[in-house]
Structure formats: structure tokens, C-alpha cells
């Protein structure tokens, strides 16, 4: 898995299609912001020809930090770089009649449109689902919005924080009595995008036999309710809800983080035989030998008794030592790593999770590859995120058949 496409200083980056990817041959028009980017990156990684359609001047997500060398610039956003690898990029002002006409033409060549505008926005531009389906009855339009296309909040303002807050997990974060803390990594958008990638492919599969496209409506706030665990069925059956528990004084709550010599380690003891092995490892203190503690609920009820032993024990190790010793005993013990420590870790390196890429402005760097390793149709990293309007000529002239003069006119009038 290596990036080795020729890089010319004068022409565009080589962006030939992945011939043998799982989704090779499908074309996706990408109108997605933060809430939908993981969906279109997923489709691009698997070989779909994803064309990112940006507003003239560049997509607003190009303003998202961090920036390469801390220099804010549309081609230096590392956020944009991560989410737009393997895509081509064009610019198009969808608020103009020419922009709308060109988008309708593009829709005729596309299998999928992924969009994240507030409901009604595309309709306002004459590009709603009905119009696009009339252009191309086989097209699948996947809309990913915070609150969905229907319902009481349809026209509300929202983002990752708002969606995550409605979803139930936010209420379980943070310390009791303190403000709940937003998860890093935009989980709600990530979950919505993952469901969207699944549903979009289900629709492509359905289309093989039916010949029909469709409109898919994904809600980020609803997706947020899918991130967590079993709170919903437990509440409905037992009428009990989970409460926040303190992490401040580590409590033997099955999977706590404990301080060690150089950071934190997670101690996860669930099964009976894991408890026995763990007890043996920490030296079988007299007080903890009671077989009653083999029951998970008993351990939880007696955390004040158990906890000091665990705290004392963990302090003897570095993160690495604790990880090696714990896993050596087949226990679910792991170090609490920083992002950099994950990048540098043995397993990450062995699996070539970070792949070398080249970008005309950022230069050589490594970035995370596709999530899955396919044996027959590898999801190869092909090229870095497109520059602003990098493929305008290739797409508008080469594929839609506009003349170079048309292109100049459209550029001059700000359509592209």
C-alpha cells in the first residue's frame, strides 16, 4: 500500500481510477460537510470515483485546524487532508443558474449524491431529490443532516455537539456534578456517516435488480443514540438508567483507568477466570481472596476494599510494562496512549495503518488508510486530497464536453 502516482509540478496530480476496488465504476458527487465526510471518504477509499464539489474558492472545511506547519491556508488544513484523500475536486457555485445546470449534467453521470445541507437548501437551488431523480432515475441521493429531513427539529440549527447531546452518551460523560464533556473525534457524525455508507451501498445493490434510485435520509442526532451501549433496551426492560460514576477516585468499576508510573492504564476485569488470574497477579491479598469477589456485582459493591490494592499495584509499572505483563496473562489490560503513541505503536506500524502520501503543498506525509483490508479488491490509497478546483478542466472539459472558452467564462463569472 504505497502512494506512487506520478507527481508533476506543472500538471494536475495523477488521479486515475482504482480499477479493481470494491466500488470501482461507481461515481459519487460529494456535497458533504463535517457530518458526511467520513461517508464519502469511505466510498472513495473503496474505489468509487468521488468528486468533491466545493464552492468557488474552496470548501469551508478547508478552514478547519490543525494546519500543516501551523500556517492557516486552504491547502494546509490537515482536517481537510484526512477526509478528502482519494477524491477528485471541482468548484461550482450551486446558487447560480450555470452552476445548477452543470450540477444537473453531472448528476446524469453519477450513481450517488451525498449532501449535508439544511433540508430545503437543494430544493431552493432547483436541485432537490425530485429534480435530480428526473435527470437520472437511477441516482441515489443520500442526505445526512443533524435532525433529518422530517420531524420537529428539521429547521433547527445543529452540529456535532448538539447531535451528541441529544443522543444519550454526552449525559454519561464527565464527573458527577460537573459539566458533561463532548467526546473528541465527532462520534455522532462518524456514526451517521457509517450508517449512510451502508445504506447507500444497500441502495446500489437494490438498484441492480430494480433499476431504481432512491432518497436516503440519515440523522446525526439519531445516529448519536447508536454510539453507546445497551441503555435503551435496559431502560425499557428494567426501568433503570445508568448514572455517571466518578473517575476522580478510581473505583473498581470493571474498566477503570488507574495511574501508573508514566501515565494511565486501563484495568478491565469481567470474566470469573480473569478475576482469578488478576488476583493471582496482584499477589492474592488476604482480604480479596473471598470467592464471593468472583462475582462482578460483589466487586462493584466492595470497591472501597478492592480499589486501594489495585491503585497500589498499578503504580509499580510503566504503561509498557503493564501492557506486556497484563496481555502476557491474557488479561484485557491496556495503556492509555496519546495519539502520537498510537501512531508510533508496533501494531499500527506492522499493519501499515499509516501510508506515505504526497501533496504538492504539504509534501510527503503519512495518513490513515482505509478501515478495511480486502483480499481480492484492495482499498489502496491513491492520492492526497485535491487542491481547490484541481479537476475542473478534467471534469468540465474532459467529461462534460465544455470548451476551454466556456471554462474561462465560468471562471470569470465566479461559477467555478
Amino acid at each position, binding site marked *: 500500500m504505497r502512494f506512487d502516482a506520478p507527481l508533476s509540478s506543472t500538471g494536475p496530480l495523477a488521479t486515475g481510477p482504482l480499477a479493481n476496488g470494491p466500488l470501482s465504476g461507481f461515481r459519487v458527487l460529494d456535497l458533504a460537510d463535517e457530518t458526511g465526510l467520513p461517508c464519502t471518504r469511505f466510498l472513495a477509499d473503496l474505489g468509487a470515483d468521488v468528486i468533491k464539489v466545493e464552492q468557488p474558492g474552496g470548501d469551508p472545511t478547508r478552514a478547519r485546524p490543525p494546519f500543516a506547519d501551523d500556517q492557516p491556508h486552504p491547502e494546509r488544513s*490537515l482536517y481537510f487532508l484526512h477526509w478528502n484523500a482519494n477524491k477528485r475536486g471541482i468548484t461550482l457555485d450551486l446558487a447560480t443558474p450555470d452552476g445548477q445546470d452543470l450540477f444537473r449534467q453531472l448528476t446524469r453521470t453519477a450513481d450517488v449524491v451525498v449532501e449535508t445541507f439544511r433540508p430545503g437548501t437543494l430544493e431552493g437551488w432547483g436541485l432537490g431529490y425530485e429534480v435530480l431523480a428526473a435527470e437520472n432515475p437511477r441516482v441515489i441521493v443520500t442526505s445526512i443532516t443533524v435532525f433529518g429531513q422530517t420531524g420537529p427539529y428539521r429547521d433547527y440549527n445543529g452540529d456535532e455537539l448538539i447531535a451528541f*447531546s441529544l443522543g444519550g452518551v454526552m449525559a454519561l460523560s464527565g464527573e458527577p456534578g460537573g459539566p458533561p464533556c463532548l467526546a473528541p473525534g465527532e462520534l455522532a457524525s462518524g456514526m451517521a456517516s457509517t*450508517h449512510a455508507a451502508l445504506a447507500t451501498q444497500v441502495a446500489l445493490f437494490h438498484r441492480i435488480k430494480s433499476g431504481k434510485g432512491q432518497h436516503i435520509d440519515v440523522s446525526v442526532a439519531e445516529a448519536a443514540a447508536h454510539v453507546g451501549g*445497551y441503555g435503551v433496551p435496559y431502560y425499557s426492560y428494567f426501568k433503570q438508567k445508568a448514572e455517571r460514576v466518578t473517575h476522580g477516585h478510581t473505583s473498581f468499576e470493571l474498566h477503570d483507568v488507574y495511574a501508573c508510573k508514566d501515565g494511565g492504564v486501563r484495568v478491565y476485569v469481567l470474566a470469573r477466570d480473569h478475576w482469578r488470574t488478576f488476583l493471582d497477579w496482584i499477589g492474592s491479598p488476604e482480604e480479596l481472596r473471598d470467592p464471593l469477589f468472583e462475582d462482578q456485582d460483589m466487586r462493584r459493591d466492595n470497591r472501597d476494599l478492592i480499589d486501594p490494592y489495585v491503585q497500589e499495584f498499578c503504580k509499580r509499572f510503566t504503561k509498557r510494562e503493564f501492557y506486556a505483563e497484563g496481555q502476557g496473562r491474557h488479561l484485557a489490560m491496556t495503556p492509555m496512549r496519546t495519539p502520537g503513541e498510537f501512531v508510533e505503536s508496533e501494531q499500527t506500524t506492522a499493519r501499515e495503518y*499509516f501510508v506515505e502520501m504526497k501533496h504538492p503543498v504539504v509534501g510527503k506525509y503519512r495518513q490513515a488508510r482505509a478501515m478495511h483490508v480486502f483480499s481480492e479488491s484492495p482499498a489502496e490509497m491513491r492520492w492526497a486530497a485535491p487542491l481547490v478546483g484541481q479537476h475542473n478542466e478534467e471534469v468540465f472539459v474532459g467529461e462534460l464536453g465544455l470548451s476551454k472558452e466556456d471554462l474561462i467564462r465560468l471562471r470569470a463569472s465566479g461559477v467555478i
Partner: protein
Amino acid sequence: MGPIEGVRVVELCTGAAGPTVCKSLAEYGADVLRIESRTRPDTHRGGPNKARWNKSPSFAKLHRGKKSITLNLQMERGKQIVRDLVAVSDVVVENFSLGVVDRWGLGYQELRQIKPDIIFISLKGLGSTGPHASHITWGPNLLCLFGMTYLWNDESATVPTQEARVQHPDFMAGVAGAAAVMAALLYRERTGKGQYIDEAQIEVGANLFGPQYLDYIVNGRDPLPTGNRRPGAAPYGSYPCVDGPERWCAISVKSQDEWERFRVAIGDPDWCRDRQFATPLARERNLEELDRRVGEWTRQYTGQEVMSRLQAAGVAAAPIQDVEDQFLRDPLAKERGLFVVVDEPEMGPVVTEFPPVRMSETPPVVDRPAPLFGEHTDQVLREVLGLDEKEVAELHAEGVLD
């Protein structure tokens, strides 16, 4: 008639991530055959305690719409039945510890001999290759390993973490696995080829942290926790509400325009005009004081009231809902049908989350309960494998169907 009706999936799974792959496919019409063991019942089935079998809310969430077949995989005949099922199936999903299905003779290399175009996905915490492939990990272990636990914290943290106790990335890994299977099904439609898919659950979780890793790789800076701070946003985060010490709302103001609307929506109090809150930079610099002032305002209302007042002015706000709020008070969940009630045979009505997806032609369907332990064993042996009643009775007598 689901959109992927006719796709048959053999589930050799434990825990949550693998079962979620199959559940997600079942929601679109796949015929999922879950292989279980009576001698080693899954934790979510209720473990060795028979009194808990068929009465597990988590099992309901993970297994709705599937069929359950009990087999003793210690016996050669039990393994052979799995091979016979794979021969007439499209997909195998497995997430046992590394090497287990190979020891059973049910790994990809064996099964592709039986069914050359089989799509076989293995889910492991850390993947199926590499020096740590055999490590024992649960979701929360993975969050520690890829940096999320560390980052889910305040800037000035003294406690280990602010992380919620959730099973992430299990469910996301399950849905992502289903998406990968769909890609392989589309590829098979085009080429006739099946394949092996290696999913490391940690790599699904880590995918969302690409920008943070790039900050380290490109800039040499290991990112620090940021709590509820996001650049360019203030007020932003959690604020207290009137109806109890653990009642909170969220507000997100990300531009000067939104700030002006926020200011008006809260009645344009004098403090809003203070220079220390006049510009985005000033507000970020004086965030503590700003949060205190905003909290004084939100503390007069419930989360729903804060949402209504601010959203009326076009400002993003919402209550921070717990599961009870979602159930009893959330108009979004109610009107869009986020929750679905299905009668479980031995539990009565149990509510689970409907997929966050609506489709104009082929919507997902959740209308069947989770299977009782071994509920479909006889049916599948007869209808799928064509065994007669006498053969099935013999298999029962020999203990093959335990």
C-alpha cells in the same frame, strides 16, 4: 421484501461488534443464521445461568431479526453442519479470538474450498495480523490504545478522564463491517469473486482521529485534550439547567452573527456589551467568565426551554438528554420513530434503537424479535439443508445440536 433479501449470512460471533454486522444486514433483509452453543453460551445470551437465557435486553438489541441454531462445534458433525450451511450462504461473519475458527476448521481458507465466492469478514480488536493481533481487548481498551480516552478530557485535567462508560467502538465497528460486506457483495456482483475482509475494530475507531494523528505526523505535535473547547466557538459546551443538579443543556455559538442572535435571544443583558465578550477572540480568552454568565441564564430554564428559546433565534442548542429523556420527552425520537418496540417471547415488549436511516424505496425493517436459544435449529436443518425428521432427531440424540 428487504433490498438484500436472498443474501444468507452465517454468524460465528460473540460479544457485540460481529453480531452488529449481522444485525445491520438483517435490518435490510439478509437471512442471518446465528450459530450458538448451549455448552458455552454467549454473555449476552445470559452466560451459564439458564434462568437468564432469552431474557437479556442486550441480546435483544444485538440479535433482532436473526435465526438461532445451536451446534456443538467440538463435534465433527457440528462443524460439518456449519460447512454445509456455508456452502449455501453468501457471507460468513466471525469475531472469535484469533485462531479459534481456524482450529475448528472453519477459517476462510477452508470455507472457500467449499464456497469459492464466499465473503468472509473477521473482526478483531486489533486486527488479524501484526504482533498484537492476539491481545485481549474490549471496546474501552481500544479507546485507550488509539488515544481517545486520553483526549476525552479537560485541558487542565487532574482526574484520569472525562470519558463516558460506553462500548464504543463496538457498534460503529459493526456497522462499518456491514458496509464493508456490502462493498464486497457489490464487487461479487460485478466479478463473481468473493473475498476475505480483515477488520480491526481499533482502526474503525481511529479513523475519526485522522486529523489529530496528522497533527502529530506533520507538525510533530501530540494533541492535548481540549474538553469542551473548540477553536472559534464560544459560548460552546455544557451549561446547567433549572430542573436538577444533573440537568444540563448544550449551546454552540460559532460566529459573530450567531453571537449577536444569542445576545438578543437571552434578552440583551448589559454584560453582553462588555468588551471582554465583544469579539470571538475576546470571548475565547474570557471563556470562564463567559461560561459563568451564560450558566446564570440557562439555570433559569429546562434544557427543552433553552433549546426552544435559542433555536427560535437560530442559535444551535439542545438539552443534554439521558435515556429517560429520550424515552419520555424527546419529540425527535417520538416523531421520527427512533425507538422501536418488539415483543420478545419471554420478555414482553423491549425497545431498541431503529437505524438512523429512512429510505424512500427500501427502508430498514425491525419487526422480528431476537431468536430464542436454538429456536430455528430444526427448521434450518430441514428447510436449508434438507434433512428429514429422523436425521434431525438423531443429531439431537447425539448431542450435536447442543
